[in-house]
């Protein structure tokens, strides 16, 4: 490979990192906290590449290159491959992981990161539980409303992170969440077996990049009307009914929590499609 092209390839790779970071496109496959590091590496690569190219230009009067001749040959073949991410990311806009990856993972029991007891106490008071047809009574109905704890610990505008929903339904033995109206956001994976009125609301948790994605999932039952399209993003409002957990059991006896749907609303895919531990 020409040493000049090699240096310019570092510039192009740096520009790719800058573009993905500044446009926030990197959130489709990398966690948000990598932002400053990606930006910094882009700047360093552009600088190193421009500097290297300028030196090659000033050396082009017959002076030897920095590398020994035998070595520059092996550099040539490997470095060419850096063209690939540029082409893939530049020509095809990478999409976030979707139902293809979800269907190839088994949902595991959530790990406990929060004080679940404190979390359920911060839920809206029992008065707001769903009443009416198909609803269940709050099994912890005698709870005193707690106004001193931030509700945001569990619900933001009535929305709960899929992670917290899995964690509370799995660990809270008082089943205090039963009947509480909840909004969950995720993408649509068809239910296995193709039962009517059901789908799997899904989201991936990442800790670095899409290669370490872990699947989070909740079953959505009693969907009225047409099921939303596979891989589309929806906000589901509904409530949890522990009695109706039909048990989609995974190998370790864990069953995916289910939400009885009252309303399924199509939404735009969020800019940050992945969950992170901050959502626990």
């Amino acid at each position, binding site marked *: 490979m*020409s040493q000049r*092209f*090699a*240096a*310019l390839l570092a*510039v192009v*790779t740096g*520009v790719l990192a*800058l573009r*993905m970071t500044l446009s926030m496109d990197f959130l489709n*496959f*990398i966690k948000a906290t*990598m932002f400053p590091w*990606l930006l910094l*590496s882009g700047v360093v690569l552009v600088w*190193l*590449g*421009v500097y*290297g*190219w*300028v030196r090659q*230009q*000033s050396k082009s*009067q017959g002076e030897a290159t*920095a*590398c*020994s001749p035998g*070595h520059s040959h092996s*550099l040539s073949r*490997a*470095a060419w*491959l850096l063209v*690939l*991410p540029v082409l*893939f*990311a*530049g*020509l*095809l*806009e*990478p*999409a*976030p992981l*979707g*139902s*293809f990856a979800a269907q*190839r*993972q*088994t949902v*595991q029991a959530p*790990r406990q990161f929060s004080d679940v007891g404190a979390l359920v106490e911060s839920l809206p008071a029992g008065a707001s539980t769903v009443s009416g047809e198909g609803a269940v009574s709050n099994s912890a109905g005698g709870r005193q409303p707690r106004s001193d704890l931030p509700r945001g610990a569990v619900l933001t505008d009535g929305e709960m992170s899929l992670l917290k929903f899995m964690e509370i339904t799995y660990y809270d033995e008082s089943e205090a969440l039963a009947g509480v109206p909840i909004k969950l956001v995720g993408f649509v994976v068809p239910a296995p077996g193709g039962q009517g009125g059901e789908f799997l609301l899904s989201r991936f948790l*990442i*800790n670095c*990049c*899409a*290669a*370490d994605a*872990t699947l989070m999932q909740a079953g959505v039952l009693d969907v009225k009307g047409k099921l939303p399209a596979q891989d589309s993003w929806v906000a589901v409002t509904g409530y949890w009914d522990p009695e109706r957990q039909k048990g989609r059991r995974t*190998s*370790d006896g864990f069953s995916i929590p289910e939400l009885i749907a009252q309303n399924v609303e199509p939404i735009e895919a969020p800019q940050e499609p992945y969950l992170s531990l901050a959502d626990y």
Partner: protein
Amino acid sequence: MRVQDAPHVEPGPRLPKPAVGWPELAALALLVVVLLPAPYKASLASPGLRNWITIFVAISVQALPFLVLGTLVSGAIAAAVPPGWLARHLPKRPGLAVPAAGLAGAAFPGCECGSVPIAGRLVANGAQPAAATAFLLSAPAINPVVLVSTAVAFPGQPQYVVARFAGSLATAVVVGLIWSRVGKAAWHAKALGRISVGDTRWRTMAATSLHDFLHAGGFLIVGAITAATLHTVVPQSVLSTIAGSGLLAVLIMALLAFVLAICSEADAFVAASLSQFSPTARLAFMVVGPAVDVKLVALQAGTFGRSFATRFAPISFVVAVVCSLVAGRFLL
């Protein structure tokens, strides 16, 4: 970042005009590809291809900061440490140099992509290959960032952090000591040929960093292609249904770590989520992953040469599995 703007900082003898040939035109075409909106959407591709593209781009781009950090350190070593200095000042006896280098790995806060160019530079600058390999194995596994993320992934179970530290450090030291006995100079010939000398320290650092980035970056792409393909072809659910304990589960998790090539700062979270496996099996996932995986083998082959990688990878794998078994038995 327009390449045409660059020549005014040129330090050498003035050229009337920079040479513009195919390299400049090709790079300009690539810049256009990067800066214009993508003409095709990957979501229109088949689901498998779409998945492959996401994982491939994710691994390639996510590794950039770590690779750049590693190549900058490598460049700084080339610029600041005179050739031969390391050989004179590091302990001569492997029994001392290898554990010291293994412990020194705890000070480098990066993933495995960054430690390979540094280890290559250490060898090129005259460090004992055995000590450099101990650093290569320990740096991505026992640095503070990795240990903290392990503690976060296993809340309330600090024994996993202790076991990981012990297992990985033991792997690094044992492999280093084995390498000091069986390693042959010819296997690192590629690394030894890498000394590049610039006229000033800054130039040496910039030239070395650029060179190492391009070189390691190319091989990182080989690793990213392999890992993305395995992610797409091998469903994780198949592997995770062969749950269990005992030696088989440990071997399965070790193989999974080799195949998935997850960054060492994130692998603890994946290990923690595979809760149907025994603690020792999950430990093996975290000890084997940073030591040897498809991405690392590609990087090592590129940095040290193929004859290095084909010997070093199997040794690391076996030693890492054995160290996990021992650490798991006594600490978990």
